[in-house]
């Protein structure tokens, strides 16, 4: 069943000197990001100060150890964890993955489980440069010596409107599984694999592309098979075969919006959208409004729009 965490409860838990429940983790370490987007500023550039880890050891399990040790490290005024967030092959050392540790604030449910959700990457996880095997030209990434790609790029420009967002100052080109962002002068700014392209069932996960390992909550909520890894990237949750690294399914679409207790509901949540099965429990009233997003129901104050609780929807 659901678990409700009023903000007062969350604060009490955060202020408690020692809460073993926080360290239980269940692999669900991600919560409200204390610095919104701050841990993601250099994403896409292969940067970050995370430690390096070899091979597939622990791949996709970054959250499993997340909560452990927090009882010692946690500061008194908030619940923090050191979380593994990004996994990527280091292009300088192709046999290595780069994992970045970020500090996250965690809000808890009454049974001590952290509330976890994904965060849409700033800049969509854009990777600088060109994909392996393609050379950077003024107008994009081209196989060396193959100008015919230019003609293809022109055709690809036609669908720029599908990826352009409000006030977007860039142009987009899609070709062979990858989306390229270029400025208005035509210079390449970066690339990323996209849903339906390189991120499709049957394709191998692009080794340079970052993802956020999915915590157990999402597997439970969406009822996903346990024999797959689940990875969040650019607004979608993917099932990946842990042995072959092949994408087995697109498991869910997610907004990746970072909603935390204490912050105001962002734009785009005006309409009541709680799942039908929970409408009796979470109906808008004079004291509380409820909005669904990415597997959780958020309770907010109708007057201030501040989020006061995060509700899990496990049945």
């Amino acid at each position, binding site marked *: 069943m659901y678990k409700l965490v009023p903000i007062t409860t969350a604060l009490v838990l955060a202020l408690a000197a020692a809460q073993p429940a926080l360290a239980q983790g269940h692999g669900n370490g991600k919560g409200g990001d204390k610095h919104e987007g701050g841990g993601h500023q250099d994403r896409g550039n292969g940067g970050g100060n995370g430690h390096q880890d070899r091979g597939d050891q622990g791949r996709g399990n970054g959250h499993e150890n997340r909560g452990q040790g927090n009882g010692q490290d946690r500061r008194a005024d908030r619940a923090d964890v050191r979380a593994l967030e990004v996994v990527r092959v280091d292009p300088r050392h192709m046999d290595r993955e780069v994992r970045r540790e970020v500090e996250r604030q965690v809000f808890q449910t009454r049974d001590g489980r952290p509330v976890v959700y994904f965060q849409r990457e700033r800049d969509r996880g854009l990777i600088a440069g060109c994909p392996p095997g393609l050379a950077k030209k003024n107008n994009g990434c081209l196989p060396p010596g193959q100008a015919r790609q230019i003609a293809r790029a022109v055709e690809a420009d036609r669908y720029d409107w599908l990826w352009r967002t409000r006030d977007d100052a860039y142009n987009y080109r899609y070709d062979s599984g990858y989306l390229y962002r270029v400025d208005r002068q035509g210079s390449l700014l970066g690339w990323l694999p*996209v849903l*339906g392209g390189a991120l499709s069932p049957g394709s191998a996960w692009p080794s340079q592309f970052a993802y956020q390992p999915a915590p157990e909550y999402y597997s439970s909520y969406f009822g996903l098979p346990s024999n797959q890894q689940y990875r969040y990237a650019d607004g979608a949750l993917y099932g990946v075969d842990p042995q072959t690294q092949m994408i087995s399914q697109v498991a869910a679409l997610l907004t990746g919006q970072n909603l935390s207790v204490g912050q105001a509901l962002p734009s785009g949540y*005006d*309409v009541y959208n709680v799942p039908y099965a929970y409408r009796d429990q979470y109906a808008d009233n004079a004291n509380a409004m409820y909005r669904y997003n990415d597997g959780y129901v958020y309770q907010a104050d109708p007057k201030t729009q501040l989020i006061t609780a995060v509700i899990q929807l496990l049945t």
Partner: protein
Amino acid sequence: MRTMMRWALAPVCVLALAGCGEQKAGEANAAAPSNRTITATLKDDRSFGTLERVLDNAALGDVLAGKGPYTVFAPSDAAFTASAGDLGDEAMKAQGAAMLRAHIVPGALTRADILSAINRGGSGTAEMRTMANSLLTFSKEGDAIIVTGDNGARAKLTGDESVASNGVVQPVDALLVKPAAAAPAA
């Protein structure tokens, strides 16, 4: 089109002694959903043949058959104009997926919910964020609900909504992304 809400709301109104006129968002408008998923609902409706083809081509049929919930603003066949290209073509999987994401929002949105939000806000509009990280803006034009996409694409909610087991299908008469808003000259 099948009208789940039309027949389902009638017994609700009869049984609810308080009457449907007093409902607030998220209260009595929660009619019993169908036992069909969004994907099955779209397949059953002949007016969404193109959308179904795009959905299958982009391999997102399983997502809309999964738990969700999602609300899909479903363009009719006529909404796929020539300028949008053939988004159901084998070579257009990524483009089709991008288009679909701009038509899907999290959660279950009934028209009563949308109208309630429009009326509640002082601006006469209400916004929802899509799975493409864009915003849809809802407004009223007479009795119709208009939805406007980020790049100015404009559609009307048409026909009847279908409340599926994992969300809602809201038919629209145009795409919510506008092909005419192509890239500015480089």
